[in-house]
């Protein structure tokens, strides 16, 4: 009695009760597709965060004023009125830490940019001339401002694509003059388009000016809340983090044992934190979906038990004409696996389809992973075997005489 034969018998038995088979499969279909959708949404979010972080460069460090929770998971920017980070600190880092190649503060000023009778409310970031290199964010047209502009607090501005599109539709923004806080600034360049960040904010709706100019002319304050530091290489990131921390403690004259009044984080920490959150979400959603798969399995067991009882006479006939217990057991076990696997495949198709529709309808990124597909196939086969074993064993254990007499 070969395997293919048993599979054919199983299919035929299921085909006799199509509606019932379909309903039983529905449990598995829903379970598997739910797992696939949930995991693909979770992994999609993870991948987009990852891509974002990688695009910022893995040798990037964040230095922010004020201490944050150790572990640095919170994304606060130290914007709590602390003045512990100064431009001098940044100069010292650039000068004295050998593993650091570039430094730029980021001083955020919310303001209006005015051109003629048009105005645009946005944030102007005060950064150094090294900002495009640190953030790996090139200028699309024109130039970024220079070292000299920073030193002289020059009224030069580089605008993002969104601002350029809105204030200078259809014309070249480079060389034009805009008014920021009632002062004329020359547009030196337009940044390349960057798109949305993981939180969905438009990164192109921003402008960059020398930090000196932002401090003196727009904000009138010398506070530095955040700075970007670039290590010489990705491998040097941890060394740089250590050395920057040591230098700042020394400069801030912190006695051993006192907590830092600043925070240095590297992108791996940020990535890890983001990943961790996403993984927890993925696991949570996946497990809830997994429970429905389990419920589907119980449905299969239920139907298989009913089926064994209903077909007691058939089992008796098969045994009387020479079927071994093992053949009967295989028949019912395979019926149950066929149910769960067919359901599993249908569920995969539904899940993959939904993973394509979800980004389109809800705008969430999804990523269908082979792991979740292979996992679903294996799991649904497992469900079939696990929940089909007991009914199959029950069928195989029947006595042919009693089974034949069963009404």
């Amino acid at each position, binding site marked *: 009695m070969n395997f293919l034969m048993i599979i054919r018998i199983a299919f035929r038995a299921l085909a006799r009760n199509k509606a019932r088979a379909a309903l039983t499969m529905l449990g598995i279909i829903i379970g598997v597709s739910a797992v696939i959708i949930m995991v693909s949404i979770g992994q999609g979010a993870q991948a987009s965060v990852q891509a974002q972080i990688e695009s910022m460069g893995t040798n990037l460090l964040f230095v922010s004023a004020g201490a944050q929770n150790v572990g640095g998971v919170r994304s606060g920017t130290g914007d709590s009125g602390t003045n512990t980070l100064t431009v001098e600190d940044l100069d010292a880092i650039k000068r004295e830490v050998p593993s650091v190649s570039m430094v730029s503060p980021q001083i955020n000023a919310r303001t209006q940019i005015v051109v003629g009778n048009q105005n645009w409310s946005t944030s102007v970031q005060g950064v150094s001339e090294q900002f495009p290199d640190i953030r790996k964010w090139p200028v699309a047209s024109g130039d970024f401002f220079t070292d000299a502009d920073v030193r002289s607090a020059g009224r030069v501005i580089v605008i993002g694509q969104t601002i350029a599109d809105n204030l200078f539709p259809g014309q070249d923004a480079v060389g034009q003059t805009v008014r920021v806080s009632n002062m004329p600034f020359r547009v030196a360049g337009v940044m390349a388009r960057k798109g949305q960040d993981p939180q969905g904010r438009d990164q192109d709706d921003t402008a960059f000016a020398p930090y000196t100019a932002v401090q003196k002319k727009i904000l009138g304050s010398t506070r530095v809340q955040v700075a970007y530091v670039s290590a010489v290489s990705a491998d040097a990131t941890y060394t740089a983090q250590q050395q920057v921390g040591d230098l700042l403690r020394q400069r801030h004259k912190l006695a051993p044992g006192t907590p830092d009044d600043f925070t240095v984080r590297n992108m791996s920490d940020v990535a890890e934190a983001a990943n961790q959150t996403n993984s927890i979400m993925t696991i949570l959603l996946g497990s809830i979906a997994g429970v429905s798969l389990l419920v589907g399995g119980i449905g299969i067991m239920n139907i298989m038990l009913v089926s064994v009882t209903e077909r007691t006479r058939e089992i008796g006939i098969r045994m009387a*004409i*020479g079927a071994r*217990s093992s*053949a009967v057991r295989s028949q019912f076990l395979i019926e149950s696996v066929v149910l769960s696997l067919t359901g599993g495949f249908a569920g995969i198709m539904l899940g993959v389809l939904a993973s394509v529709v979800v980004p389109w309808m809800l705008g969430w990124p999804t990523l269908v992973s082979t792991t979740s597909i292979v996992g679903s196939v294996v799991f649904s086969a497992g469900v079939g075997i696990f929940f089909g074993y007991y009914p199959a064993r029950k069928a195989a254990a029947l006595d042919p005489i009693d089974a034949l007499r069963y009404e």
Partner: protein
Amino acid sequence: MQATLEIGRQEHEAQAALLTPEEAARPVIQLEGIHKTYTMGDVEVHALRGISLTIREGEFVAIMGTSGSGKSTTMNIIGCLDRPTRGTYILDGQDVSALSKDERADIRSRKLGFVFQGFNLLSRTSALENVELPMLYAGVDAAERHRRSVEALRSVGLAGREQNHPNQLSGGQQQRVAIARSLVNNPALILADEPTGNLDSRTSVEVMEIFQRLNRERGITLVLVTHETDIAEYAGRVVVFKDGRIRKDYKVTAPRDAAEELKNLPPVEEDDEEMDAAELAVAD
């Protein structure tokens, strides 16, 4: 397959020349001191109290008895569906008294054919597939299965009915499918348990005609359980059970001839197809 059977029989006839007809044929069933005791709670029920019975190749034996006489238990033991509590059972030269469940399944597959009172065909399964079923478990390949099933259905007069499902067949036709199914693995023995119990008298005669034909033309050994005396009269030998023992065991000197009786019965209106099929079978 018919050819090999034929040769086997000729060899036997050659040897048989020296023996009395009684001893001529090889024994197919040898039951020796068979006891069967069931335990129901604290009570022991003695279903069989020492049965010894020999049935030889080519015999057509009817087992009779009232319910509770032990004939069904004997049938189950002969059919390797059950094991005796005590005693030995040699089937076709092999001791099968103490075989395991799976070994008995193999014996049933290779050496036995069953015909039941309630036909016991798989519903929503074609006649052809029903007949193929025993070969499936015996590991016969697909082409051979098909060939033998078509052939078996034809031999019981059901050519052209291969694709019909049991609910599209009359009781007599269903029982003929069951007979075809019992034949396909060339068993040493066909066991028929009240095969006419659910049939009207005319259809009963038709079924008995097939049994007699298989017994005479192909030398198939038949054991038939019945409680109807007139059905038992078609057999060549009758064994009567009572209270777990054999009461009578006698040869029927002039068994009834079902084929003759069918000729004398008034024709009944049957659907044309079936008549055609029967004629086809005769023509072959």
